[in-house]
C-alpha cells in the first residue's frame, strides 16, 4: 500500500529548498482564498489584523493539514511572525519556520507580460505550488502598473488595462526574493501606478509614500473591493489616460 499523500499548507514565500522536497505532497498556499473556510480568526485575532493574516489562520484551521511551512524572515511582517506562535498554540502538527533570504532571482516575465493583470497574479500565485515558467510575451509599453502584495480580492486587477505591470512585493514573489527591498521599491517613472496594500498592513506607509513620490494613487482594501476604492482606481486610470 502506498503512503497517504500529506497535505501541507504554506504561507508567504518559503525558500525553494524547503518547498521543493514537499512538492510530491499536496501543497496548499494558505494566503489564497479557500472557499468555505470558516472565519474563526474573527475570534482569535485583533480586529486590526490584515485580511491575509486572517485568511492564513482560517485556512490553516479549516484544512486538516499535516504540516505548515511559514516564511517568517525579513520579507514578512510581525503579524506573520506572531501568527506562527498562534498556530503553534492551536495546531498539533509540525510548524516549520523558514527565512527566505534568497537574492538569486528567477526573473519577472509574468509581471512584465502582456497578459490581463488578474491572470498574471494567478500565475504568480500558482507558481509557488507548480514552478513552471509560463510562455508569455513581454508588454513593451505598459499603460499602467500596480504595486503591492497580492490582493485578497483579485477583482482589483480587473480594473487595470491588460499588460499593466506588477510591482512591489508581488514582483518579489515571482522573482522568489521576498526580502529584496530594492526590487520591492522599484517603480518606473511616468507610468500611472496604483499603490495597493491590505488595510492594517504596515506596507501602507511605503505605499502612500511612493504614491506621493510618483504621482500615483494609494488605496488600501480590507478584503472585498469596495465601491469607493473601485471608483477611485477607475477615475485615476481614466484621467491619466491608461485605458486609451
Amino acid at each position: 500500500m502506498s503512503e497517504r499523500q500529506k497535505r501541507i499548507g504554506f504561507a508567504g514565500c518559503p525558500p525553494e529548498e524547503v518547498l521543493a522536497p514537499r512538492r510530491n505532497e499536496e501543497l496548499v498556499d494558505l494566503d489564497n482564498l479557500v472557499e468555505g473556510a470558516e472565519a474563526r480568526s474573527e475570534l482569535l485575532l485583533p480586529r486590526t489584523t490584515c485580511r491575509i493574516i486572517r485568511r492564513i489562520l482560517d485556512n490553516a484551521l479549516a484544512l486538516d493539514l499535516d504540516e505548515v511551512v511559514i516564511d517568517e524572515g525579513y520579507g514578512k511582517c510581525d503579524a506573520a511572525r506572531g501568527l506562527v506562535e498562534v498556530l503553534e498554540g492551536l495546531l498539533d502538527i509540525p510548524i516549520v519556520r523558514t527565512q527566505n533570504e534568497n537574492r538569486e532571482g528567477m526573473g519577472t516575465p509574468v509581471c512584465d507580460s502582456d497578459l490581463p493583470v488578474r491572470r498574471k497574479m494567478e500565475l504568480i500565485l500558482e507558481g509557488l505550488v507548480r514552478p513552471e515558467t509560463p510562455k508569455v510575451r513581454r508588454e513593451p509599453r505598459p499603460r499602467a502598473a500596480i504595486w503591492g502584495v497580492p490582493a485578497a480580492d483579485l477583482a482589483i486587477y480587473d480594473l487595470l488595462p491588460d499588460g499593466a505591470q506588477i510591482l512591489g512585493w508581488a514582483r518579489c514573489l515571482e522573482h522568489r526574493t521576498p526580502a529584496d527591498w530594492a526590487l520591492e521599491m522599484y517603480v518606473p517613472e511616468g507610468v500611472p501606478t496604483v499603490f495597493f496594500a491590505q488595510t492594517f498592513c504596515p506596507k501602507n506607509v511605503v505605499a502612500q509614500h511612493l504614491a506621493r513620490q510618483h504621482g500615483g494613487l494609494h488605496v488600501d482594501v480590507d478584503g472585498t473591493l469596495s465601491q469607493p476604492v473601485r471608483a477611485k482606481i477607475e477615475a485615476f486610470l481614466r484621467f491619466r489616460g491608461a485605458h486609451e
Partner: protein
Amino acid sequence: MALLADFGTTWTKLLDTRTGERQVLATRDAREQKADVATGHNARRRASRHVNELIAMAQGGERLLGEPEFLLLDVGSRDVKYVHMRRGELVGMDWTTTCGALTGFTLELLGHYYGLDYGKIQPSGKSVPVTCGVLGMEQLFELVSEGVSEEEAVARFARGIAVNAHRFIGEPEQFYLSGGMCENRLFLGSFPEGVEVRPLGRFVLVEGLAAELSRT
C-alpha cells in the same frame, strides 16, 4: 438624446436631454426607473451605460465651471467625496463611506424628527464631533437632554459635519459644493469662518453624464 440619471441613496436626479426636463424623485419611488446613462447606487443594473460617481462629478464640474482648476465636494446621504481638477487632470480625490457615513441622511432625518426649517436656524459656533452620522446623533441627543435647544443641538451637528468635510478636502479657502446639501442654508453657513462655499446644486453628477455622452 438620452435619459440621464444619478441614482442617489435617498434622491434620484433625472435629466431628459431631449426636453431639458429635470426631475428629483425619492429613490424609494424610483426603484423601477431605468436610464440610458447613469451613475450612483445600482446604476450598473439600471442603465445601459454606467459612469462611476467620481468620474461623473469631475466631468460635471468641468462642464459647469469651465475653470482651469477647481475643488468640488459632494456631501451625500451616506458618503462624502471630492475631486480636485487642474487643467483636465485629476490631482486629488477621495470618497469615504466610513468616516462621515450617513451624515447627510442623518441631518435630513433630524429635520423631520424635530420638525425643523433649516432656512431659519442660525449656524452655531460650536460643533459636536461627527465621526459618523450615528455617533454624532448620540452626541446630539446628549446635548438636548442637557437642556440645549433642539435647534442649537442640530446646528452644532451641522457644524460638525461641515468641519469634518472641510478637513477631508484639505481645508481650502474656497471650494464648490455639489448635492442636496446645497439647499440646506444651515449647512452652508456652518463651515469655518472665512471659507467660501459655492453651491452648484444637485445636478452636477448628471451634468457629468451629459459630458460623457459627448465623448462618444
